């Protein structure tokens, strides 16, 4: 009787040990999964907040944004862009090598967003960069544009002029 009792106790102990081990492992996995879920939810929430911020601070009637893109330009790396709107400096941006690569791979950067009243305006973009030989290159592009009571988007485009084998810079309006 004593032997049966002790063997049952041993089995129970073994079972409880196994169960606690299993529960601990499950707990760890659960914790990892909850962290991932939390991360995903926080990302969604922050995106929602970001959208709300854009809607609230830059209403469609006054919104003005400037984008930067660089298509298939291998022999030029942008290092900085300075924007002047109606003779006032509005922003300047320094690019890391990773960001230049991101532009090369088709990314568009929203370099500036703000509010602008209807009327005629002037945007000046000063672009600094280096070519493959390490020579510094500085170009200024200017765009006169009209703004109505709707959003206005401009894009600073850096393209490759294949004929002259040099980069081309332009400001284009998004229709």
């Amino acid at each position: 009787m004593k032997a049966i009792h002790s063997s049952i106790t041993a089995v129970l102990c073994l079972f409880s040990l196994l169960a606690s081990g299993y529960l601990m492992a499950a707990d760890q996995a659960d914790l990892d999964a909850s962290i991932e879920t939390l991360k995903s939810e926080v990302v969604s929430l922050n995106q929602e907040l970001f959208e709300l911020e854009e809607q609230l601070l830059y209403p469609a009637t006054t919104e003005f944004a400037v984008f930067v893109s660089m298509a298939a330009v291998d022999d030029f790396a942008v290092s900085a862009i300075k924007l002047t709107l109606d003779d006032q400096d509005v922003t300047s941006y320094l690019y890391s090598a990773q960001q230049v690569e991101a532009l090369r791979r088709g990314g568009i950067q929203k370099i500036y967003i703000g509010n602008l009243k209807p009327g005629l305006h002037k945007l000046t973009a000063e672009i600094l960069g280096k070519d493959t030989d390490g020579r510094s290159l500085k170009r200024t592009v200017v765009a006169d544009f009209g703004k109505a009571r709707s959003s206005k988007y401009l894009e600073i485009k850096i393209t490759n002029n294949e004929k002259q084998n040099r980069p081309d810079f332009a400001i284009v309006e998004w229709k």
Partner: protein
Amino acid sequence: MRWFLLIAFAISPSVLAEDLLPEQYRASGQDALYGQALFSLHSGEYQKALGLNQALQKRRHKNTPLLKIQQATAQLGLGMSQQAKKHYKKLLTAKSSKLISHGTRAQAWFYLAKHFYNKGMWSTALQAIHQVKGGHLNPQLKDEFHFIAATLELFQGKAKQADKHILAISPQSMWAAYAFLNLAVSYTERDVHINQVDAVFEKAKMLTKYTQHPESLEDKINLMAGQFFFATGRGRSAIKHLKEVSLDGAFTSKALLTYGWALTEQWQYHDALQPWYMLKTNHSPLNQDVQETLIAIPHLLEKLNAKVMALGAFDYAGEQYEMIYKQLEESAKRLNTGEFIEPLLAQQIPDKWGAFAAIDLSLPNHPDRIYLKDVMSKSYFQGELKNLRDLHVMRSQLNSGIEQLAAFEKVQITRRDEYQQVKNDKRINLTSRQLLKLNKRYKTLRATVDKAFKNPSGVGLASEFEKNQLASFKQLNTDFKALDENGHYLQRLRRVEGVLKWALSQRYYERKKEVSKNLAILDGKIKQTRRQLKAAKLAFRSTPKSFNGFDKKVARLRTKYQQQLKRLDIVYQKQREKVGGIVKLDIKKRQKVVMDYQLQARLAAARLFDETSNKHRVVAGAEVRQ
């Protein structure tokens, strides 16, 4: 097997999540959202990329499989490996997807395998590496692929497959040294002849020149070889390798300790003391190698028959162990009160998180830093700490989100006030009244002007006196006609009348010019007032109700943020306990080792005390007998 782990963690070069991405460009030139998502993803801003990706998927973008790949990449970047793995497996195994070329597919599997390998998920990494078709892989990645494949196969104990991969690595590649080191370690576990093991160690050492840190790797190889030869009873070979380890590297303390033991094994007791004293003097007692040395030195002194010195050294070791034990106890307390984790988290960059954002493990002037460095060097601990850091960053993000929402509320209130101000503005009424007055004045003036300037002869502009004069002329004309037959007076009268009329006509033009000018000014005023009225009416009509609808959105988001914060706090506490648990466990292990050493030291001291006392007694007895 534990040696493999050492190698695996030592060589974990950084892999960025975007390396997994295929070379896909944005399809539509002006798709701002997609372009921005691509920019964020390639520039390593995974959180922003994932958020934009979610927004794009909500818009039901056409390139859904591509978006899914990008989503998985961003998830990987944020350390959401489980979710990313699910997406990747689904996408990469779907052979029908034309979006992914064979080269890209091979590359993606390779980087995925590398990512899991670095995270220590070896079976998953092996599954992924088996999917890589070497033929399609970029030649620059081939050596690394063979190295990872070999290491993973060795982890699974499949030596033959591992050997195949090792032999496929180019000797000039940096991976060759690591691969041969792994091979040597696997030989030590496979009972291969000792000469062959030594040859492979030597080969690995030769190949270190192609690696980024050849000196450090060479030290490591020498230490591993030395430890292996010492463990297999080949002291001389061990000494040969251990002698080559530099004295100011990361492996110095371990090398000095093993060197001392190897010399002891060779009965070179005097020589063995030298590395141990060097180790004891130059390193902290919290270093585990020093702790072993503390008991090894008296052991050696005893062997040299310097029993009194050995007794003193055992006593000293016992005291040191007691002190170390207390220090470890205090560290454990600091861990419970959060004095360790909180400063560590506080020194992290506040907005950097995710799998690729490195953790700042420096612990300036922290009392626990010596042994914490050991714990921190373990990849598992770093992974858990990264998770805790991510939760910490997320918590501060949520808090700043709540603050931002409060600021939005203020903006909304300001906008509402502005709107009310415009609506309550009396400008329209005032301008309307002014316009009415001006119009009335204009009309009256116009009527007067019209009346005055009706006759271009300027009669309308004549003064009362002049009007009387003109009337007198008329009367005189009739009178003169009746009296004057020669018409002499009549002619004179006409001359006088002519002078007056000429003066009047002259004044007419001048006055007309002046009046026209004044009328134009008045007209201008009227037009301006009318414009003001129009603008005021337009402003009234079109004042943006830009605050409308936002209060609900803000309130809803705030509730979500607060709920999320509560949930995060619970998970944070659990994760903190987990991280703390790892360190606590390490502290306990260290305490146990220290206690063992202390016990050994005390027993040895007691034994030696007994022996030396007996000797004194024997000597004293002999003297008495004499």
